């Protein structure tokens, strides 16, 4: 026979049975509850307070496949890039430092999938020029035509994660009602325990497998259209560079877990409606049957060094979504601030004069 002690939903104190009132009362805060309420509350909490577990499949060994005849290893940042005769590169695509290609047969681990390039170098150049346009704070050397010409098409390695999620989340929710009479304003706050439990599935969450490519860039050019994804064949790579992955899938898992957790919370939270305030109290999010596949995804990239810092421009080679970081010319900032301030000041004076 299990000894059940209830905890008070209001203050966490002990609940005692009040025999005079035939009800359950908290010994610390004096709140009164019915037995059913307390039982349900216990159940909800138990489910949601279990620790979260993330279970991913172990990775299997991959075979190597020969894809290129030239390669370079960047001395500055360590990136290993593989290409073919047609893809000579003089700069490292990731850090912009000069490199020399080695002629030698080289390969990469065999990917499961690849999304072939859809947009051409011309498309990429146009996009880049547009990006530079209307950036009044940009130093002018960026817009130099020579720089733009150096943009390269790179297959960036990605891990694509599938998983199922089971979650139990409990929220503290309130409804508020106010009214008043001639002397006071009354506020009644009704407290609820809201439990949500269920499952959902995710597929092909991408996490980039190259340590040289900052995650935030790759996140920003998402999503890719997986309907155009193909089984891998080395032929897709000709004419483009490819990056050997150096980040194991397991190393990507924390970032993926974070995203899964966030999406699960958002999805569950969206089913809690009709309350004035909703605060998550406890959650148990379990990832199961997680597995990762390795894919090459197409990206147009150009990295420019400015004042000894690399600034990268990347465009999704399939969808055209682009992202970039550009340096800010301090001189221009000051000029613009003064200019706008002066104009606003003038406008204000006219306004004042008219009134």
């Amino acid at each position: 026979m299990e000894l059940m002690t209830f905890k008070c939903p209001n203050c966490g104190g002990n609940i005692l049975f009040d025999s005079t009132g035939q009800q359950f009362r908290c010994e610390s805060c004096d709140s009164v509850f019915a037995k059913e309420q307390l039982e349900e509350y216990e159940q909800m909490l138990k489910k949601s307070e279990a620790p979260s577990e993330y279970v991913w499949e172990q990775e299997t060994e991959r075979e190597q496949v020969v894809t290129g005849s030239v390669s370079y290893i960047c001395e500055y940042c360590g990136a290993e890039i593989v290409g073919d005769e047609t893809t000579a590169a003089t700069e490292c695509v990731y850090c912009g430092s000069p490199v020399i290609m080695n002629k030698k047969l080289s390969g990469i681990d065999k990917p499961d999938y690849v999304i072939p390039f859809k947009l051409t170098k011309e498309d990429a150049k146009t996009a880049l020029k547009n990006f530079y346009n209307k950036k009044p704070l940009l130093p002018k050397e960026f817009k130099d035509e020579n720089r733009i010409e150096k943009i390269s098409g790179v297959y960036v390695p990605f891990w694509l994660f599938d998983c199922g999620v089971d979650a139990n989340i409990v929220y503290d929710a309130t409804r508020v009602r106010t009214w008043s009479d001639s002397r006071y304003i009354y506020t009644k706050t009704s407290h609820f325990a809201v439990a949500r439990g269920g499952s959902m599935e995710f597929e092909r969450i991408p996490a980039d497998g190259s340590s040289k490519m900052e995650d935030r860039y790759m996140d920003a050019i998402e999503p890719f259209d997986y309907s155009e994804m193909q089984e891998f064949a080395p032929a897709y790579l000709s004419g483009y560079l490819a990056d050997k992955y150096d980040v194991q899938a397991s190393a990507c898992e924390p970032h993926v877990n974070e995203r899964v957790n966030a999406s699960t919370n958002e999805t569950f939270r969206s089913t809690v409606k009709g309350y004035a305030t909703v605060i998550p109290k406890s959650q148990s999010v379990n990832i199961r049957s997680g597995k990762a596949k390795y894919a090459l995804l197409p990206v147009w990239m150009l990295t420019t060094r400015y004042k000894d810092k690399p600034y990268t421009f990347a465009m999704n080679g399939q969808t055209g979504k682009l992202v970039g970081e550009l340096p800010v010319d301090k001189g221009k900032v000051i000029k613009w601030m003064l200019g706008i301030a002066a104009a606003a000041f003038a406008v204000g004076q006219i306004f004042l004069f008219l009134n």
Partner: protein
Amino acid sequence: MKRLAVLVLSLVLCFSMCIPAWGYTVPQTDGEAVADYASLLEYDEAKALEEKIDQIKSEYSYDVVIHTTSANISYEESQDYIDDFCSNNGYGADDPDSGIVFVYFEAGGLYGIKEIGLGTRVYDGEDLESLDTVVGSILSSYDYYGAFDKYVDEVYAYLKSSPVAKELKKSDEETSFIPLEPYNPLSPGAEGLQPNRGESVVDDADLLTSFEEQLLVSKIEEIIEQYSYDVVIHTTPTAGNAPSVEAYADDFYDYNGYGYGGNYDGMAFVLVMDSRDYYTSTHGKGIDVFNDSVINYLGDTIVNDLSNGDYYDAFAAYLNEVERYLYEYANGIVGDEYYDYYGYDDPSGEYNSGSKIEDILVKELGILAFAVVVAGIAVYIMKRRMNTAVAKREANAYIKKDSVNIGYQKDTFLYDTVTKRAKPKNNSSGGSSRPSGGGGFSGGSRTHTSSSGRTHGGGGGKF
């Protein structure tokens, strides 16, 4: 010559003696309640009537006199006869006892009723008329005793129900408020002010010069005309034996004919010097427009001036505020909109703009700040567009379609908590938040019933 003079003189003498005898002689009674000169009643009938009348006299200090005469009086002369009868027997306005005189002219079947002393306070025209009809119908059947008996009963019943008579009944001491004019507690729906209304400013404590009084009176007249609302300002050295300042103010208002319209809309502001009390008594519409928080506010506005002896200033400020609340009530304006809208003179000086130069400087600084902010925002936006690489924190795009299944959904009620906080009240004079009047959120007026039976609101304080 001498003989002519004597003749003329004697004629004149004759005439002067005869004139009163023309048409009628007005008898002088011995103060008896039933003066039955026409012998219409038996001895015991008269006695019974006198007993009833004595009862009334002892209970209410109210005289009832019944006089019959067989003198041949025409209708035109009957009024004079009654007047003469009253003055001959000392039943007049000087007689401190109140009462009523009934005279019956047997010859023409005429009768008349006259109030004496303060008796006009008890009966109003209509009631006298109703007495007439009651008695008249019985007299026409020649049942004199029945008629007079009924008459006395009616008077007695009326005294019992009349609130003013209650006043006569209960106090042997002099009542402290001698009414200035007779009043009509029961006349329904009279438009405008009452004909017997007292003065707008009654300065018994002599705090104001006549010029100041005149200014206040004009202001009150404006208010009456604009808003159909009566205001009276009354100062008195003492409230005498009144049970409370509230009662004194209520009664002052009720018994002096103040109030506009059928509901006697208006208010009285009373200052009692010996107890240093001030009090506002509201009636009718006044209760709605000047709710409790506004009454408090009015008091706070003037209490300093009262304490300093600046009575005119206090009353003027009081009237200003009253007018302003009436204006807002009439136009559905709430709060401080009134200042701007009406171009109103603000007594607390809050909106005084100060020197011109300071003004401009402040505005220039404001524009400068505005310019800097605008520039900052513009540049910030420019900068943001320079870096669009932001990590994704969620994976919403990768949720497998239709895979979401939240099977367990349970919302459980736990408990309620109720808190309350007092509504903000205005508690400092000048400059703090002004309550809104009339039906506004700041709520209601406590009312009470005064001695007249009417409902009053209001409030006051000490200065």
